């Protein structure tokens, strides 16, 4: 990493009222378009153009969401889903980081660990659902295992790449300073690979939600996915859409948390670059 890179000077903020008004107008426009869409949606539902049996109106979704919240259904199911996602993700982080360290820090480790993981990675994780149900039954285990399986690979792949692509000139420099292997790992390799680990974590979080949706809709007695499947039996599109909104919010919030982690741990980057993860 070139140490003598001068951070690109920030573009001076064009002063002046006209510019400010311009920016404000753009901000308004950004929010206006989704609001208009929601209003249109509400309009088509209210005027009976679309059957509310097929698409619940925004007002209906809000009302249903509120009542589900008040009777505790939403809270209970959300808690279960969160616990599953968090447990699975935690396992994935432990496994992914562990494997990446083993294969990133030693040639032998790479030979032993990398090839099997690269092969496993090409399997679509969701194809494991029937097998997981056979193996783990219908309790919490198959759901957590599915989340863990899906989320391990992005962590492993990114951290492994991060460790392998540490600037060799920095490693050479630590040799001239007589740094021990342990200190080199702690002070150079791990911090250098952290940006990649965080990119992997963002992918992994997205993957967790995807796995959870499938696991809870295929086979579950609780959780947001289960709540949505049950609503399907009673043709309650409003409840299904509450579930969709919740999933959307969960994705948004968890992504923000990882972004916050990036800002906190990567504060050494002069102009914090946004992660490349989608």
């Amino acid at each position, binding site marked *: 990493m070139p140490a003598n890179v001068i951070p690109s000077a920030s573009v001076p903020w064009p002063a002046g009222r006209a510019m400010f008004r311009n920016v404000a107008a753009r901000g308004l426009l950004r929010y206006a378009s989704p609001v208009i869409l929601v209003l249109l949606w509400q309009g088509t539902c209210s005027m009976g153009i679309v059957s509310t049996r097929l698409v619940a109106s925004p007002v209906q979704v809000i009302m249903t969401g509120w009542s589900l919240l008040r009777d505790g259904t939403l809270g209970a199911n959300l808690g279960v889903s969160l616990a599953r996602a968090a447990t699975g993700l935690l396992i994935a982080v432990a496994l992914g980081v562990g494997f990446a360290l083993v294969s990133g820090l030693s040639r032998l480790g790479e030979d032993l660990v990398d090839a099997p993981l690269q092969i496993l990675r090409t399997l679509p994780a969701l194809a494991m659902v029937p097998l997981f149900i056979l193996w783990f039954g219908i309790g919490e285990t198959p759901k957590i295992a599915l989340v863990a399986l899906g989320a391990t690979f992005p962590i492993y792949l990114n951290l492994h790449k991060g460790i392998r692509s540490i600037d060799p000139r*920095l490693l050479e*420099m630590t040799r*001239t300073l007589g740094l021990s292997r342990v200190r080199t790992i702690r002070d150079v390799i791990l911090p250098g690979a952290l940006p990649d680990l965080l990119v992997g974590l963002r992918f992994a979080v997205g993957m967790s939600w995807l796995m959870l949706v499938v696991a809870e809709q295929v086979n579950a007695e609780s959780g947001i996915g289960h709540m949505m499947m049950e609503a399907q039996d009673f043709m309650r599109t409003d409840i299904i859409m509450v579930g969709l909104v919740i999933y959307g919010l969960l994705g948004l919030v968890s992504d923000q948390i990882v972004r916050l982690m990036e800002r906190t741990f990567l504060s*050494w*980057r*002069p102009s914090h670059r946004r992660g490349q993860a989608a």
Partner: protein
Amino acid sequence: MATIAPTGAGGMNAVFMTDRMHDAIAPRDGGVAVHGLTRRFGHGPAVLDGLDLTIAPGEFVALLGHSGSGKSTLLRTLAGLDPVHEGTLFRPDAVSVVFQDGRLLPWKRVWENVVLGQAGADRRDRALAVLEEVGLGHRVDAWPLTLSGGEAQRAALARALVRRPAFLMLDEPFAALDALARLKMQRLVARLWARHACAVLLVTHDVDEALLLADRAIVLDHGRIRTDLAIPLDRPRHHADPGFIHLRGVLLDALGVHDD
């Protein structure tokens, strides 16, 4: 004193020592002695070809040569980064290297980079003192990626000095700097060398830089030192000094560049 000898040559050191071993310098003084050093990459031609070199304790030597002549290879071997396959090499244990690119860890603050791997409760104080010395006292807590090129090289110099080296190696440390920053850095190095009294090997492609700073300029050519030029000028030195101008002509000649 580190003795780095080719494998299986354990008993040879004494022979070298009593051989034509470099005039006055006994290596245990803290100087550097290289004898018959040969280095090739793969089956290619020898980059260093039976090279002999001695540097007295506290001596400032400038190493010149065309690009690709093996300057960095020699320095890397002296630094212990490259192995010694053929030949012998004596050097002090306490050596430091500064590369052209500062090679600071971007995720550690400047002062932490300076005392990287150093133990002790007074780490920060030591870092502060040496950063003050190189004129970077106002940037101790900065992140390296926010430093200018000159500041990064000062930090790298501080990191080298905090280890109290008996032998300091500099591989084109100012080559990437603008002319003004380079002048300041040259003065700084002259000051630091006067104070720390360590042996210095400065790789440079700048003839004036060599003449400003060094006791001796050597020119690497076809894997050997073809020119070994003493620079007996008083310090501080000036470009306009007749002795300076004369030596510049000699050095440029040695480099195959003719000063018309």
